[in-house]
């Protein structure tokens, strides 16, 4: 048993850490966040130039077939910097879905660009009524009578597509058969957002990123947009969402590390009643609880990174649901405790802590919150 990163993984993590430290000061992040793009095109370019956007892809695509642990090492550092770039959406999820379901020619079309960072992908898997259930799909893809260039017509709405505002390709789920909550009958389409009938309503998110809701109004796409076999995307989506959950957990660990470091520092430096407030036992114990929550989350992030790329099983499902549950709980505890212990300054926009807190809460609303995953875990408990 050895929980240390190997040399290459450590180098990878160090590379990202250096880059984030150099390029992603808190002040710069506020500036990036305020632009229409919502992140730094320059930082994205640097990530790609260092080969970091290619990490999980094969060597032919410029990557080195990195698995869950490599993605974890990288995401934790992006988390520490509260980085806004759509790594999760484009590389992990978009690249993951296309790589998993796509044909050779589709992979050729999209993956090299995603791996090199030239193309940005986003994913539209949620809908206004779906809550966190990715099988709850009402968007319909009807077979079109027309030529192969217009094989399907898509109608429906896709909700909270993070990074969708700037994506070159959006992978959307749509129902080709079955009822709105069936696992079967879901298909995936690689959609060019400039196609007629695609309407995006763009907005900032509470944690500083950007996303959009998408209305699909008679959107005609070719047969080459269909990823994988018609109606069989349910398992692909579940599997790739699992990889993304592991990545999100790793990001959350980075955010929590920073949140705890900032809070501890504040406890040592802020004086009241003539002493640093860290001398007060009630605050010391709360700080210890924050540490302990982080370590629980870190353990689950490690475990989930180790199952992210294994064959699907109930054990993999349990680990990922358990990890997202713990990360959701720990994140909220750290966010709330940290704001509380910072007092008034923790409530302000201009001080960095609040932005860590907002990201932690934000992560809980991506791919299922702690309640959702607890329910999920409990259902797997009954099956066992």
């Amino acid at each position, binding site marked *: *048993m*050895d*929980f*240390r*990163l*190997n040399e290459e*993984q450590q180098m990878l993590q160090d590379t990202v850490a250096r880059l984030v430290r150099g390029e992603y000061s808190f002040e710069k992040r506020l500036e990036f966040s305020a632009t229409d793009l919502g992140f730094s095109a320059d930082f994205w370019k640097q990530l790609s130039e260092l080969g970091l956007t290619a990490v999980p892809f094969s060597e032919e695509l410029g990557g080195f077939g990195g698995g869950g*642990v490599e993605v974890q090492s990288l995401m934790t550092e992006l988390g520490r910097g509260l980085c806004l770039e759509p790594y999760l959406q484009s590389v992990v999820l978009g690249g993951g879905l296309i790589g998993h379901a796509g044909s050779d020619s589709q992979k050729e079309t999209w993956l090299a660009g995603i791996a090199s960072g030239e193309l940005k992908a986003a994913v539209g898997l949620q809908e206004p009524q779906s809550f966190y259930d990715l099988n709850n799909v009402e968007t319909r893809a009807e077979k079109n009578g027309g030529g192969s260039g217009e094989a399907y017509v898509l109608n429906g709405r896709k909700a909270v597509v993070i990074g969708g505002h700037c994506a070159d390709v959006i992978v959307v789920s749509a129902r080709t058969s079955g009822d709105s909550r069936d696992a079967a009958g879901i298909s995936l389409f690689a959609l060019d957002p400039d196609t007629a009938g695609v309407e995006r309503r763009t907005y900032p998110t509470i944690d500083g990123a950007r996303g959009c809701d998408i209305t699909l109004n008679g959107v005609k796409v070719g047969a080459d947009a269909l990823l994988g076999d018609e109606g069989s995307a349910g398992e692909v989506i579940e599997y790739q969402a699992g990889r993304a959950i592991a990545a999100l957990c790793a990001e959350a660990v980075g955010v929590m590390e920073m949140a705890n470091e900032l809070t*501890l520092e504040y*406890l*040592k430096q802020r004086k009241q009643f003539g002493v640093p407030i*860290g*001398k007060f*036992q009630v605050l*010391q*114990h709360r*700080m*210890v*609880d924050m*540490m*302990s929550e982080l*370590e*629980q*989350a*870190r*353990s*689950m992030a*490690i*475990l989930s*990174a*180790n199952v992210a790329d294994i064959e699907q099983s109930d054990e993999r499902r349990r*680990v990922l649901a*358990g990890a997202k*549950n*713990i990360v959701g709980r720990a994140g909220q505890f750290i966010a709330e405790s940290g704001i509380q212990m910072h007092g008034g300054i923790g409530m302000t926009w201009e001080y960095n802590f609040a932005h860590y807190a907002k990201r932690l809460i934000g992560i809980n609303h991506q791919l299922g919150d702690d309640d959702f995953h*607890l*329910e999920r*875990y*409990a*259902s797997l*408990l*009954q099956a066992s």
Partner: protein
Amino acid sequence: MNMNYTAEEFAFRDEVRGFLDENLPADIAARVKGLRRLSREDHERWQKILCKQGWYATHWPEEYGGVKWTPVQKHIWDEESCRYGAPRSIPFGVNMVAPVIIKFGNEEQKQKYLPRILSGEDWWCQGYSEPGAGSDLASLKTRAVRDGDHYIVNGQKAWTTLGQHANMIFCLVRTNTEVKKQEGISFLLIDMNTPGIDVRPVITLDGEHEVNEVFFQDVKVPVENLVGEEDKGWTYAKYLLTYERTGLAGIGLSKAALSHLRGLASRRLKNGRPLIEDPSFSQRIARLEIDLTAAAISNLRIIAAVEGGGMPGAESSMLKVRGTEIRQSINDLARRAIGPYALPFVEEELDQGFNGEFLSDEDAAPLSAHYFNNRKLSIFGGSNEIQKNIVSKMILGL
């Protein structure tokens, strides 16, 4: 990053399982799994079996009859023996006083006491806490005054676990009142049969006689029973506490308890369905199982670090808090699982050899008492609040 055992470790696990399959007495395992009280005889029988195998003294060097296990092997033993329902060794002799004697005792003490711990001839208990010295242990007042070749001991020790069975007690005593409180403490080994010692039972909230108070009145203790140097006892005590703290998280015990809970919740009904299918109850179990999974990985991270040559530090304190909270929550759920039958307290149903008709069933009988008994987990071995103080000081630097 590698979360798996090595081939050798898997082989060791098989060896452990084979040993337990063949040697763990079924009646004892049934009592452990059924949360029944173990008798002195149960403990002694199991200790003999372990000693014969050479697996009793897992913290000792081989020259004294210990077994040279790696941290991972110890972990495997812990997991498997909990899973099989083997009794935990009573730690006071083998895991507490022995490491102190080995590290700080003289040759004579080693020759005298270590074999008697292995053979079961000596049953040790711990004389640390006092009525006025709990979390603030260093303020202890039991006094030892040098008189020729003897110390004369006067005072009172509290919460002496299984002291009613013990013939030896290791004590922290005050030998110097002129210096800082930590610097006037000595570590004495005392024969419980010495005149002037009085052991009185303290019945705990579950009706159990597990702890005692021990009174010392003009007890004559030969000076050769002093371990190490006079007034240096606090150093030895702290060394002992690091042994005590390892394993206090009780991950293996929690895993066994959780599996017991799942069985229980599968057999009890709510709304005509197994309780484990009830949405709110299954979510409570799920939450605990998730917490335990994370704590188990945290435990492995510490073990792997120790295996790699590190020392377990204040991380074990954090894990003690988490681990005991989890086990108490499992006990809480087990009690909830029997609904109104958590109320009846029919003590004889817990006795060995009870063959009457159970009021509810044998599952239910011990659950409330067990829940209350395990409230001790967050108090002993350094209360959870003290553990947080340790983390705050040692890791956070507050």
